[in-house]
Every structure is written in structure tokens, then in C-alpha cells.
């Protein structure tokens, strides 16, 4: 476990020494801020409209602000995740530092966990920064904080799964751009798979929709902790990390 910590610290340092982390944090904060402003603006507009008509419409800040916001954020995540994971292994392979890791007394699993956790921590810090926006909601409104927390947990689990897949893809190439592009394509595919459920009800479509990471975010965005969905993400994390381990092993037999 000590080795996981050694690798984790090194990875975090290289994120935060280079501009990578800051650019990602800034991008995420700006885009999140825009969504927040937009959705809140619409919410306020609807509130005024209902007052002018003189009839009270049911309005709920959790349902009408937090829920659509979290759904949108989970999509922004899809775009930023490839940028977090693309360098994890591709860079080490390109510069040859992978030889240092592979000839040190640390196991592959420790290296993989350290790298993946560092990516998760970077993503978590991106999420943490967005909490600033919610301070305003709590200042001027009375949202329920439990659904919000569960929503954030869902975002983290979803990102963890996609980051695990991105980590795996990064072991396949020396080229960061390729790793990033492929990860992006896979993330996007895992997102839009859900669309088939819109017109098709056959078994294959239900399976495809089930595979989509968005399908399982539905419950979290509502603030419900559904264990089936949580387990889906955890399984995906294990699957991604397992593939990474296999890929690292095969690296030795191939090269």
C-alpha cells in the first residue's frame, strides 16, 4: 500500500506541476458555472412567470436546478476525462520511464491503483471547486443537501469508471493523442448507447441501454442511492483496472 501512495504522490505532483491540472480545473469551473447560471436563470424566470400569472406552479429547487445540473455535469465529465487519463501510461512508455517502474520492487497492481487514484483525486478536486456555486443556492434557498451529496457521489463513481477505462486505453499506445482520442470515442459511445432505448425495445437495445453510463446516473441525479446502479459503476471500475493489469502484463511478453 505504501507503494500505491508513492506512485499516487508522484502522479499528483506531475498533474499539478504541469499546467494540466489547472487548465482542467479552470475549464470545468467555467463550464459548470455557465450551466449553473443558465439553469438558475431559467428557474428564476419560471418563478416570475408563475407569479405574474397569479397561479402557483409547483417548484422545487432540487428537482428543477440540481437535477438537470448534475446530469449536464456528468456529460462535461465525458469530455474532460480523456484529458486526465491520456498521459498516465502513454507518457511513461514514450519516455522509457516505464522501465524504471517495471524493474522496481512494486507490483503492477500498485502502479495501476496509484495512477488511477491520482486521476480520481484530480477529478474530485474539479468537483469540489464547483461546490462554490451551491453555496449561493444554500444562501438564498433551502435545497435538500442529501440528494445533492448522492448526486456528487454518482458523478464520482461514474468518473471513476470512465477513468479506469481511460487508464486502460493509455496502456495501449505510446502516443498521448491516440490514447486521448480513443478514450473520448469510447466515453462518448458509452454515453449515447442509451439513445437506442428511445425507439427500440428488443433485448439487444435494452442491453445496449443498460451498458450506457448515463442510464445508471438517472437515479443518482434524482438523489436516490440505488445499489444496482452503484454496483454497475463499481463493476466497470474493476473491469477497467483489470484490463489495465492484463495489458501491462502483456506489454512484457510483447515488447
Amino acid at each position: 500500500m505504501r507503494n500505491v501512495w508513492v506512485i499516487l504522490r508522484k502522479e499528483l505532483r506531475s498533474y499539478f506541476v504541469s499546467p494540466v491540472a489547472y487548465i482542467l480545473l479552470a475549464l470545468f469551473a467555467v463550464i459548470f458555472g455557465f450551466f449553473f447560471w443558465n439553469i438558475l436563470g431559467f428557474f428564476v424566470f419560471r418563478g416570475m412567470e408563475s407569479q405574474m400569472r397569479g397561479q402557483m406552479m409547483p417548484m422545487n429547487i432540487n428537482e428543477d436546478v440540481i437535477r438537470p445540473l448534475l446530469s449536464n455535469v456528468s456529460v462535461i465529465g465525458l469530455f474532460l476525462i480523456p484529458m486526465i487519463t491520456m498521459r498516465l501510461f502513454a507518457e511513461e512508455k514514450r519516455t522509457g520511464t516505464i522501465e524504471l517502474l517495471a524493474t522496481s520492487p512494486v507490483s503492477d497492481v500498485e502502479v495501476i491503483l496509484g495512477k488511477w487514484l491520482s486521476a480520481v483525486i484530480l477529478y474530485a478536486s474539479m468537483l469540489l471547486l464547483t461546490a462554490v456555486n451551491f453555496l449561493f443556492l444554500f444562501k438564498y434557498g433551502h435545497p435538500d443537501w442529501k440528494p445533492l451529496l448522492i448526486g456528487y457521489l454518482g458523478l464520482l463513481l461514474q468518473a471513476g469508471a470512465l477513468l479506469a477505462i481511460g487508464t486502460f486505453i493509455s496502456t495501449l499506445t505510446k502516443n498521448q493523442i491516440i490514447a486521448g482520442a480513443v478514450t473520448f470515442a469510447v466515453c462518448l459511445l458509452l454515453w449515447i448507447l442509451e439513445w437506442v432505448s428511445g425507439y427500440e425495445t428488443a433485448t439487444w437495445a435494452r442491453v445496449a441501454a443498460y451498458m450506457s453510463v448515463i442510464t445508471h446516473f438517472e437515479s443518482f441525479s434524482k438523489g436516490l442511492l440505488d445499489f444496482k446502479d452503484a454496483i454497475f459503476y463499481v463493476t466497470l471500475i474493476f473491469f477497467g483496472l483489470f484490463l489495465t493489469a492484463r495489458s501491462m502484463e502483456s506489454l512484457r511478453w510483447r515488447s
Partner: protein
Amino acid sequence: MITVTDLTKRYARHTAVDHISFEVHKGQIVGFLGPNGAGKTTTMRMLTCFLPPTSGTATVAGFDVLEQSFEVKKRIGYLPETPPLYPEMRTVEYLQFVGSLKGLAKAELAKRVDYVCDRCAIVDVKDKLLGKLSKGYRQRVGLAQAIIHNPDVLILDEPTSGLDPKQINDTRELIKSLAGDHTIILSTHILPEVEQTCEQVIIINKGKLVATDSVSNLQNRARGAESLLVEIGARNGLVDPAKVQTRLELVPGVSRVVLKNKRENRSVFEVESRKGLVRGDLARSIVEAGWDLNELRPAAVSLEEVFLQLTGNVAAAPAEEAAVTAGVK
């Protein structure tokens, strides 16, 4: 310290290393010599547990590289051909990272980092970014990284490639100075490097072991015949080289006498003979003729010749000439 038995690495289309066996004893510096693509790096990667062998075994400090790779990894320091540096790290940070990766405890780590910085003369660049270091410094940080955990065995892949002559010299001196504490294998395709730094040579070519012996034995082995350098002087008057030649050729066992160098009152001859004890007869014959025997010593054969002979390189002739003259001076 290192035992390699029938080590083989086969890829889909070719065999990179083909049944190599050798042994390295504790405290030795061994030169791993071969032309580019001979399988040096592949062998080293197998010894460092980076690549698994296709067949055969290798043990480092008594541990098998495949079965007990964890124990092996703890006991080796490895410098790959390009030093494995993270450009965004500072020298000290990097050494601390590698040290903790190799399992050093925190208290020991600080001491070791100071020690290796001192040893490898990188104190001046302690706080510099690795990406900004010159090639020579990068190589030295690479060496510092390899010895940070005081490993029993050091494996260095072409430690002097790409350096300028002064840096090469410094690096060689550094490696030599490390020999007492560590068993060292270094690979190179530069022959003088082996002559200067190593005690033992392992020569491989096209994946096959060609020779393994001490440097001096290999030099002796290079020729079936022995070659001696004889300097003859005369106190009164000149020595006629032709006369010397005819006289020396009469000594039993001598096959050829060549004049190498002629000055006013002394001449140097190279005497080739069958292996055996001709030196006594040679000396007696010279003295009996009334000449002075100033010097009689075996001509050093450079490893280059040995290497070319052993690897069966056809283009040996011109290189051989150059090497012999180098050996004379």
C-alpha cells in the same frame, strides 16, 4: 552473483538471445560487448525482470528472475539506455521518488539521496528540473538513481553512449569507483571502454555467446602465436636492421621479424613466434651478437582485434593495422 543458464528470448520472427550462459562473481565489473543489435539490451532486460525469458534461467543473488522477481528487483539497480527521467521533476524529488519506490525508509532516504548526489557529482543540479539537464548530467542522475538503494548488482546499458569524451571519461571513472561495493554488468559496443573499465568480458553476436573470459586472457587468445616487441641498441655505431633481422630469424621458434621503428642508435622490432618460450633464446642471441637488449615485452593485442576475430568480421584488416600500432605506442 549472477548465473545465466541457456537464456533464450525468441520473438515471433527472430531469436534475439540464443542459449546464453555465463556467470558473474561478486564485486566484478563485466563488460557486455557486442555490435548493435547483438542482444545486449534484451539480455539485460531479462536480468532486470523487465522481459521474461522464453526459456532458460537466470538468477541474481540466488533469486530466479522469473519466479522470485520481487527479490531480484530489490537487489538490482538498472540504468536503461536512455535514463528513465521525468522531465517535470527536480533532481532531488526524483531521487526521493526512486528511493521510496525501491523501498527505502524515510530516514534512510535523505541520507542516501545526499550520498548519491555527492558520489555522482550532481550536487550542483540538485534543484534543477530534469528536463533542463545536459546529457552528461542526465546520465549521472541516471546512475545516481541506479545506486540509490545500494543494490548488490548494477546493470548499466551503454552508460557512455552519446556523451562527449570528457564526460565519457568521468562516467568510466565513476563506474570503476563503484565496483568495490557492487557487482556491475555494463554493455557497450565501444571496445576501449571494456579494456579500460572491465575485468571480465562477455562477447555476444547475433544473440549467441562468442566468448567469455578475462580481458587479459582474451588478448592472449587473440593469436595462436605470440608477438614480442624487442628494442635493440648499440653503444658504438649503428645497428644494421637487416643484420638483426637475419640473426633473429635464426632463433628457433621465430617465424617473422618486422622492423617497427628505427632511431639513431636503437631500433624496435616486432618478433612473431609460435607460442612457447622463445624469449630466453632471443635475448641470448642478441647479447651474444654484441648488441644491447633495451626492452623485451609482449605486444599488447587490442580487444578490437579479438572482437573482430571472434565475431568473424570480414572488414578486419584495416582496423587490425590501426589497432596494432595503437598497441605499440
